[in-house]
């Protein structure tokens, strides 16, 4: 019946127009869609970095020789370290305890004489192990600088070091190993999780509380139309936020975009549907804004932050915990974002993840439609 289709379209159009008007009247939705992503991206884009730069290192040189001077100079040129000199170990250890420095490098008295002898630790390194990750990175840097300096020294003296195997490393996609390039795309997923859930978590609960849903149910409108009428406006807002975030990533943070924009847009759509669907579901189940708000805080941010692979590698998690990450929509989108930005349109990565997102969106909307009140009970 074409007549009913015309009416269906009219109802939907009416609902969408209504939602837009409400968004316009209460600018907090607009703030969530546009101001929040900009604020968060700026803060994190500049604020979050796993690259240790200018790590404060304390030096204790027991006896100054040309070799010790040469070695310390090798560090002074590195952008990774910032050198501080201490007279003795006690002073350096005190500084480490006070968190003024993160590592101590001690060159013993016999540093020069023992340099090319085996099993004679002429150099002692102490790192602050509280932050295990940083400690490990620092050890790696120190080790690398040490090796390089040794071979340099050997070459100058006309000898070669015995190194049966050397590992030649080539880093693909992000050869400068800038953590920014991998964090910023991941951040987009975190931010979209938040905006998506924030946009919709309250909207149905609010209509319950204000009694407008009751009036709505009594009209010929179907619940599917009500949900679509909520979804479409917030989807458009969310996409606006997504585009803004992508533009900032590319133009402000200089993250290379090696894949195609359209893939980002398409998978972004899917992900946004997941985020909005989750918000809607929370809103429908909670029925009051207080509980919906609490649930949205707890169910979105920390899981997306910790379980999406944004910062913590999923492969390293125990299998049981890995199983949980499959429930976090951000996981799939993070994988897509990191690939499309840094590697390109690699379909074998994009397709399964996109499929998973589509499935999740379908589940959320299925549940939302099922839980949505057709009557007042």
């Amino acid at each position, binding site marked *: 019946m074409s007549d009913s289709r015309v009416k269906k379209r009219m109802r939907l159009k009416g609902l969408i127009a209504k939602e837009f008007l409400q968004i316009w009247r209460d600018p907090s939705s607009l703030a969530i869609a546009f101001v929040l992503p900009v604020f968060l991206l700026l803060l994190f884009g*500049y604020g979050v970095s796993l690259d*240790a730069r*200018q790590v404060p290192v304390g030096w204790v040189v027991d006896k100054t020789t040309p070799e010790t001077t040469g070695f310390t100079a090798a560090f002074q040129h590195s952008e990774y370290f910032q050198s501080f000199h201490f007279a003795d170990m006690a002073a350096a250890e005190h500084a480490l305890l006070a968190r003024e420095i993160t590592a101590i490098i001690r060159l013993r008295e016999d540093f020069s004489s023992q340099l090319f002898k085996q099993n004679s630790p002429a150099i002692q390194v102490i790192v602050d192990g509280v932050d295990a*990750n*940083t*400690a490990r990175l620092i*050890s790696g840097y120190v080790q690398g600088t040490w090796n390089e300096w040794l071979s340099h020294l050997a070459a100058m003296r006309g000898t070669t070091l015995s190194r049966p195997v050397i590992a030649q490393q080539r880093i693909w996609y992000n050869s400068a190993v800038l953590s920014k390039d*991998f964090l910023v795309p991941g951040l987009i997923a975190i931010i979209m999780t938040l905006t998506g859930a924030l946009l919709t978590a309250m909207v149905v609960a609010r209509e319950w509380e204000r009694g407008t849903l009751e009036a709505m149910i009594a009209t010929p409108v179907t619940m599917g139309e009500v949900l679509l009428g909520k979804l479409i406006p917030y989807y458009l807002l969310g996409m606006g936020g997504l585009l803004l975030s992508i533009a900032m990533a590319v133009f402000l943070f200089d993250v290379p975009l090696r894949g195609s924009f359209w893939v980002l847009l398409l998978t972004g759509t899917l992900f946004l549907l997941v985020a909005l669907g989750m918000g809607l579901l929370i809103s429908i189940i909670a029925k009051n804004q207080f509980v919906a708000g609490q649930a949205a805080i707890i169910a979105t941010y920390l899981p997306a932050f910790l379980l999406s692979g944004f910062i913590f590698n999923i492969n390293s998690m125990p299998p049981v915990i890995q199983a949980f990450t499959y429930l976090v929509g951000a996981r799939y989108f993070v994988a897509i974002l990191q690939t499309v930005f840094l590697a390109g349109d690699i379909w074998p990565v994009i397709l399964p993840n996109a499929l998973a997102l589509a499935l999740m969106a379908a589940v959320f909307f299925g549940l939302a439609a099922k839980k949505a009140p057709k009557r007042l009970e």
Partner: protein
Amino acid sequence: MWAMIHALLIKEFLALVRDRKSRFILIGPPVIQLFIFSYAATFDLNHIPIAIYNEDRSIASRDFIERFTAAPAFTEVLRITHQEQIAPALDEKKVLAVLHLGPHFSRDLYAGQKPAVAQILIDGRDSNTAMIALNYMQSIVAAFNLDWAQRHNLPLPPAQLEIRAWFNPNLESQWFIVSGIVGLLTLVVTIVVTALSIAREREQGTFDQLMVTPLTPFQILVGKALPAAIIGILEASFIIFMAVFWFRIPMIGSLAALYLGVVLFVLSVIGIGLMISSLSVTQQQGLLGTFLFIVPAVILSGFATPIANMPSFVQDLTLLNPLRYFLVIVRGVFLEGLSASALISQYWPLAVISIVTLICASWLFRRRMY
């Protein structure tokens, strides 16, 4: 006066606990999240998938490769036979790295004229994991070299660095992360209890009702803050208990120093939560405010990414973040065994944040009446 505060306290608890959904939110997710996050958030490498492309096929190369595949950090998931297979394996994220030994690997190794080359191709999309994996692989190579030199009476490589890590000798990142999660979950629970509570009373009109009673803003403040403090401290205690007895994180400092930190931290979060709550007219605004606080608070706390790595203006911003100080306290007490006197530099900023935000919140009670 205490009878009035007592009444407020009971009311606040009942309001939180009588609603089934609200009760669940306070207890269920924090416990579940403690476990999931503690296991999930790790920078340690476990079972990282790698591919091997060995064109050499000698005993030496197999021995070399064994050292990689036997390491708990790596799992070989793919054996590559052609050059063309490398790119897809990395592209499609099937493996993080490819270890490639050329056809001349063993020849170079036995000849000893020039070093044999082991090529490592690694996916840099996740730069942090890549760096850690590379460090790890380099140390495997170094160990191999040492053994090889010893077995073949070659001049041994020069003195190795002797690296010792204080406070966390095996560099277990779970120690670092779980101590951080104590802060994270305490933050979230406390903010959830406070941030919407005044906005809700505003919407329901009960806040007006409170304002016409003889209660002073100070009493209302205490009435709102105390339940949240009790819940926050209880949940923090539970998480600390689990950290010590389940996750076996060493707890070498004084419990008193830790609890002084917990109390100050919870108070400062309550202050911020109540400030958000009394600033917002609707619960939607309260929720927005909450996110605007907790998202930066977590990221800029040093929980996962070191504050030292941030640009200096962002580092200055973190001085406003109570979680930053609390994480130093928790980790200091747990791992470094610091005493209360050593942590004074962390206590006083928390105390200042608490006092300022609590005063602001109680001032806003009256100002935002209309």
